[in-house]
């Protein structure tokens, strides 16, 4: 199911913007707990295997009715709580229900071939899945470079080839790398990042480079008249961003004196950058 499984303290929901202090008393199963429980499983086969193993049973001896019953209990609990459930769990529930009804019905006298016996199919699938589950556990235990194995390395003081020979990657590669990084970041932060003109970012760097020598610069020194009004706006936004991000300080020697942009001095209050 979820690839990023995180077990954390249940988050209390917000109701109309107000953080709830506690869960309502009548709700005795925190939905989150159940969610976490189900997230610990890699799907219906894994859950079934767990239910079987929990009772110390061999797959070949599953008391199918009992396991089915337990499985259904979990599933119905989930749907009562209106938690989203992966479709596979429901498909499995349907299959189990079918098997159960077959077991309860009197055995058909004829035509009962195990060609498409759903029990047989299920047991085989469980066995097959378990093989790979075990194999993956074995795989995880094998020594791995970077975790259990480390390489012996030594470099010459200088490597003969100059860094300049490194080729320029394609712009496509660069852009795709950015997209991927941002997509991953959004999965963590659950909020998307608004459009931001790159020209402001570029200007921020240019201003920083200009003042990094230690000499403050006046605002008008930072804009080039040929850039017109847009250039001034970009410049202003860049200065504001720099100040906000604790990257530069804005000073004025006396009232009505020109504003000076200087390298940031150590501050008392910690200002963290945007995007947090």
């Amino acid at each position, binding site marked *: 199911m979820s690839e990023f499984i995180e077990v954390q303290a249940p988050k209390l929901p917000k109701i109309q913007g107000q953080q709830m202090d506690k869960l309502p008393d009548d709700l005795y199963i925190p939905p989150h707990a159940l969610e976490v429980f189900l997230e610990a499983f890699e*799907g219906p086969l894994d859950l079934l295997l767990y239910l079987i193993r929990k009772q110390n049973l061999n797959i070949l001896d599953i008391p199918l009715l009992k396991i089915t019953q337990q499985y259904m209990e979990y599933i119905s609990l989930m749907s009562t709580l209106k938690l989203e459930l992966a479709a596979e769990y429901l498909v499995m529930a349907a299959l189990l229900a079918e098997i159960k009804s077959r077991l309860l019905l009197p055995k058909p006298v004829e035509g009962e071939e195990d060609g498409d016996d759903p029990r047989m199919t299920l047991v085989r699938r469980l066995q097959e899945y378990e093989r790979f589950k075990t194999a993956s556990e074995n795989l995880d235990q094998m020594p791995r470079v970077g975790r259990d194995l480390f*390489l012996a390395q030594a470099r010459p003081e200088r490597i003969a080839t100059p860094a300049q020979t490194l080729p320029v990657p394609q712009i496509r590669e660069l852009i795709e790398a950015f997209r991927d990084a941002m997509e991953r970041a959004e999965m963590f932060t659950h909020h998307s990042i608004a459009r931001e003109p790159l020209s402001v970012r570029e200007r921020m760097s240019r201003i920083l480079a200009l003042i990094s020598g230690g000499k403050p610069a006046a605002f008008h020194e930072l804009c080039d008249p040929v850039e017109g009004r847009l250039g001034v706006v970009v410049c202003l936004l860049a200065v504001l961003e720099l100040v906000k991000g604790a990257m530069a300080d804005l000073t004025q020697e006396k009232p009505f004196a020109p504003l000076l942009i200087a390298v940031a001095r150590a501050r008392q209050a910690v200002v963290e950058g945007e995007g947090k």
Partner: protein
Amino acid sequence: MEENKLDKILEALLLASDQPLSVEQMHRLLSTDLSASKADIREALERLATSYESRPAQLKEVGSGFRLQIRSEYSDWVGRLWQEKPPKYSRALLETLALICYRQPITRGEIEEIRGVSMSPNIIKTLLERGWVREIGVREVPGRPALLGTTPQFLDDFSLKSLDELPSLPEIKDPEQLEAALLRLGQTAITADAAPAQAQAPDAPDSSTATVH
């Protein structure tokens, strides 16, 4: 004398490279200036391996060639050099990797079928980015799904010379036994307690472990 020089150059190359070096690569790197044959290089590697016997590093052959690695008895010490923990992979990712290892070439759909669950696209993406898995073709069925297989990098990172060195896949139990069990299956029904505690396979999942892929 010449032998000694070859040994030292190979040692320098192996120490400097961040990837294992194959005999062919070493031969290509040296052939213009040193008249060393591949056989010479293989012999030199043997001498090198011997000379490292008393050292904390060792010469090891893995999928894409030879490398010098720290002996595992020093791993605990060496692991302290890095503050961040190596990534811990999710079970979904490891199961997918296991299926690709043992069943390659395999499509995504086939993996989903065996695991009984649909797969987040990030899993394959992570495996591709990690360089452990690659697309090695397509299955000529509707949709032309990509066929996945492992890479030499996978062998290197898991310290394997070839896939043959992987532990063998756990066997499926005797099919005849399966038939017998199926017959019993209907009868045992609700009387679960009749279950004998026989031939038990690995433990149930430890559902309490938090995994961050």
